[in-house]
């Protein structure tokens, strides 16, 4: 079970350190191997989209990076530093929660079902992290939050509780809430899957805006192939817990090499 950790660098250094690196990462649920020795690099500012059939491990990739799941093997590096490991006697060992929290400040996540705090207003949701975690004054946090709510077109609804907002509105608030923490990496897990078709563009427009205006690194799981093709720098096709094929959107969608990629894309396009 114990892995030889000497093969993993203590930190990543050099000119082109990736913002996120999965090195040899394995995830198991009991006997079920969900991710098998995954290697994946994401460059600073890059928008990487993950597509693939249900159960192929897409969500698990994001959840491991958000530390919502433990990993069973390998190392994840964020901004050059190991996420859940620290160095001791020249080797990587599991880190304590203090280290994890320090690295985790660089990561933000939006969920399929928004997960806004129901007992706080839209503004309260956005201010919660900056005030309680970053220690900003209420005034600073409010300023920052209002700016972001304005960016996602939700400034007018600042005093509403989530139960009085539509799905599209809730998701936009959730994006503002995550951005208020000023993460370097944003994770989007099927953020439009729970939305009615007519409001999907409310949310995709916000993400489009982020691609243009911020130096954010983004990892997005989506079933919307058109959107993935339009905004990604790179698309990864997951199959059975591994990357079956990856490349630029043009290459992957128009010239897929692997049989499984072709089958998947045909099936998805048929369904639409």
């Amino acid at each position, binding site marked *: 079970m114990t892995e030889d950790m000497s093969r993993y660098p203590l930190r990543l250094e050099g000119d082109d350190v990736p913002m996120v690196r999965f090195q040899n990462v394995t995830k198991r649920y009991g006997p079920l191997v969900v991710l098998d020795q995954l290697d994946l690099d994401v460059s600073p500012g890059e928008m990487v989209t993950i597509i693939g059939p249900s159960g192929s491990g897409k969500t698990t990739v994001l959840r491991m990076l*958000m*530390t*919502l799941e433990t990993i069973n093997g390998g190392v994840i590096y964020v901004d050059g530093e190991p996420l859940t490991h620290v160095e001791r006697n020249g080797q990587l060992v599991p880190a304590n*929660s203090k280290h994890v*929290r320090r690295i*985790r*400040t660089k*990561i*933000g*996540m939006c*969920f399929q*079902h928004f*997960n*806004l*705090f*129901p*007992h706080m*207003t839209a503004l309260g949701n956005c201010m*919660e*992290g900056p005030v*309680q*975690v970053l220690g900003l004054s209420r005034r600073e946090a409010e300023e920052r939050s209002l700016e972001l709510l304005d960016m996602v077109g939700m400034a007018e609804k600042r005093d*509403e*509780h*989530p*139960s*009085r907002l539509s799905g599209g509105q809730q998701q936009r608030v959730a994006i503002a*809430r*995550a951005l208020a*923490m000023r993460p370097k990496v944003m994770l989007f897990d099927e953020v439009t899957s729970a939305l009615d078709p007519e409001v999907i563009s409310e949310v995709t427009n916000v993400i489009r805006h982020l691609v243009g205006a911020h130096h954010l690194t983004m990892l997005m799981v989506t079933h919307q192939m058109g959107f993935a093709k339009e905004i990604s720098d790179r698309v990864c096709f997951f199959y059975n817990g591994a990357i079956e094929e990856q490349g630029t959107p043009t290459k992957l969608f128009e010239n897929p090499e692997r049989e499984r990629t072709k089958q998947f894309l045909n099936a998805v396009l048929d369904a639409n």
Partner: protein
Amino acid sequence: MTYIEFLQVHGGRMADGTVLTVVQFLLATVVAVAVAVLFGLMRLSRNPAIRGAATVYVEIFRGTSLLIQLFWIFFVLPIFGLNLDKFVAGFLAVGLNMGAYGAELVRGAILSVPTGQWEAAVALNMTSRKRMWRVILPQAFVIMLPPWGNLVIEILKGTALVALISVTDLMFEIRQINISTFMSVQAFGTALIVYYVLARFFVTPVMRALEHFMSRRIGRA
């Protein structure tokens, strides 16, 4: 002697007793809430020793009768050097006992907050303490208010037992009146009415109002 005359003669004592019952009830409720939150959280601890201690507490206080616990606290603890005033022993016993039931309500409510809420709090990088106090407990509070409504009524009814260690609450006064007058129907009839009125027209409306207020704060109403 008519019932009116009965009330004229004994009403003062019964009113005094009622005041004491209400005070015992309020203090027992405070103890029960504190115990419930403490042991409810301990039941969810990752540390097996803490979890085990809470489980033992809940098992003992739910598994034996309130009357026996009351007698233990008042008659047995002094043998081990812990002397409690009967007034304190009274509400303490009721509070400790009902708190054990409350702990299960706290635990259940915390577990029924959707996991997405925990995950969102992690994604905001909150400490586990902030997660609990800022995100989970406020929502758990709303979830557990309706069952607490029942438990609080049980606390009120449970305080009647403190008469048995001579706390001069309503039940104590009623028994004294019964012994000296033999007017059992009037005496215990009045007790019945006072306890019912307290429960039905004071406790229940307060709990309802609290439920309403909290669900409005969470934006549900």
